[in-house]
């Protein structure tokens, strides 16, 4: 019997190793898998490369991981925010490397990895600082920049419901990067608010098919494990 449900969050992240590239879902705090990040901090892996849209908010979640000095490099589109003071301090102290990627290119490069593509030509960023030194090509009268896929060893994402085969549905705008990151990592770990019995998720509305997901861990006060 295939059962991807993991009941301990510590166990869910136990094999994340130092030096790994880890995608973390979320746009700001919506969809950020805070409990998985806390477990990763406790687990101790360091020298990580993190892929996220932002670079942490306040002192919790991704910001706490940065504050614990576990991250060497962050690949993101929008690090500077009103409450990104943890990242700001590390950046100014040159204690973290930043690869800045336009948000749509970030999404497209993650999707390219998940889809097994070798590279993409994207119009976004052409002629700007963020395309400097990159190969460009004019195709059908439009200019494009060559960009390479972003792959990860692990993806930590947050979904609403999941079943033991790893099928996932999401909640509102917390979906954001979850489905595409799930496809681009060797090992995707999803924290869910609720585990439901196999067959309960409507196959017409499953957003992330279980093939992209290795582990599902129920988290939070409302999390119930009704898996069968």
């Amino acid at each position, binding site marked *: 019997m295939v059962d991807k449900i993991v009941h301990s969050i510590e166990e869910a992240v136990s094999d994340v190793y130092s030096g790994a590239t880890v995608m973390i879902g979320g*746009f*700001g*705090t*919506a*969809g950020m898998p805070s409990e998985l990040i806390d477990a990763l901090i406790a687990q101790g892996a360091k020298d990580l490369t993190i892929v996220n*849209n932002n670079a942490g908010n306040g002192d919790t979640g991704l910001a706490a991981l940065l504050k614990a000095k576990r991250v060497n490099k962050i690949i993101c*589109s*929008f*690090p*500077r*925010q009103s409450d990104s003071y943890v*990242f*700001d301090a590390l*950046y*100014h102290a040159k204690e973290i490397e*930043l690869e*800045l*990627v*336009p*948000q*749509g*290119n*970030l*999404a*497209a490069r*993650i*999707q390219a990895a998940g889809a097994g593509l070798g590279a993409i030509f*994207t*119009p*976004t*960023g*052409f*002629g*700007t*600082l*963020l395309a400097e030194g990159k190969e460009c090509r004019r195709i059908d009268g439009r*200019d494009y920049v060559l960009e390479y896929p972003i792959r990860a060893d692990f993806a930590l994402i947050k979904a609403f419901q999941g079943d033991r085969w790893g099928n996932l549905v*999401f*909640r*509102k*705008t*917390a*979906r*954001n*990067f*979850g*489905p*595409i990151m799930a496809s681009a990592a060797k090992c995707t770990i999803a924290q869910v608010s609720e585990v439901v019995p196999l067959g309960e998720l409507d196959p017409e509305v499953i*957003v992330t098919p279980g093939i992209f997901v290795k582990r599902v861990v129920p988290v939070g006060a409302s999390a119930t494990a009704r898996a069968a």
Partner: protein
Amino acid sequence: MNRMNRDQLAARVARDIPDGAYVNLGIGLPTKVANYLPKDREIFLHSENGVLGMGPAPRPGEEDPELINAGKEPITLLKGGCFFHHGDSFAMMRGGHLDVCVLGAFQVSASGDLANWHTGAPDAIPAVGGAMDLAIGAKQVFVMMDHLTKKGESKIVEHCSYPVTGIGCVDRIYTDLAVIDVSPHAGLLVREMVEGLSFQELQRITPTPLTLWTP
């Protein structure tokens, strides 16, 4: 002269958004346009974090931290609205599916280059978000901004001195003084000016040639 305030400017932009349009309003000043969309038009607001059919801000106490816009502010969803992941969301933008996007700007050049993401200051932490995708993706890109900086320098320039966000991507500029089309053939074409402002005066404060549109 009757310089437009920010609400008047937002209302002016809103008038040009047609019924049935798919629209992205950038973070900051453009967000105000939503308050002035004509009630008799059905207009779809897109937010790049993954929502189409965005409604107004929720009532106090009804905010949902998982229902936000690209500015990370709480929103509501209209009946018929939907959610999607970032890949789909940026396909809508980059793939030319949005009819209009409205952006703020530091500068717009005579050929429609846009600078709105980075001041280029050496100690500034760069952040780009979806600005470059929005700049080149929508069928029509509207910029709304003050005509002059606080120091009195024109934000419409011959060439951008700030790092650009996109090349030749702006279609129309709405400032507190004028509405100006960026025409590939005719250059900067002044469509409207606020009451009491002469074309000569507008040209005097704008360091690149303007043409007065005539019907």
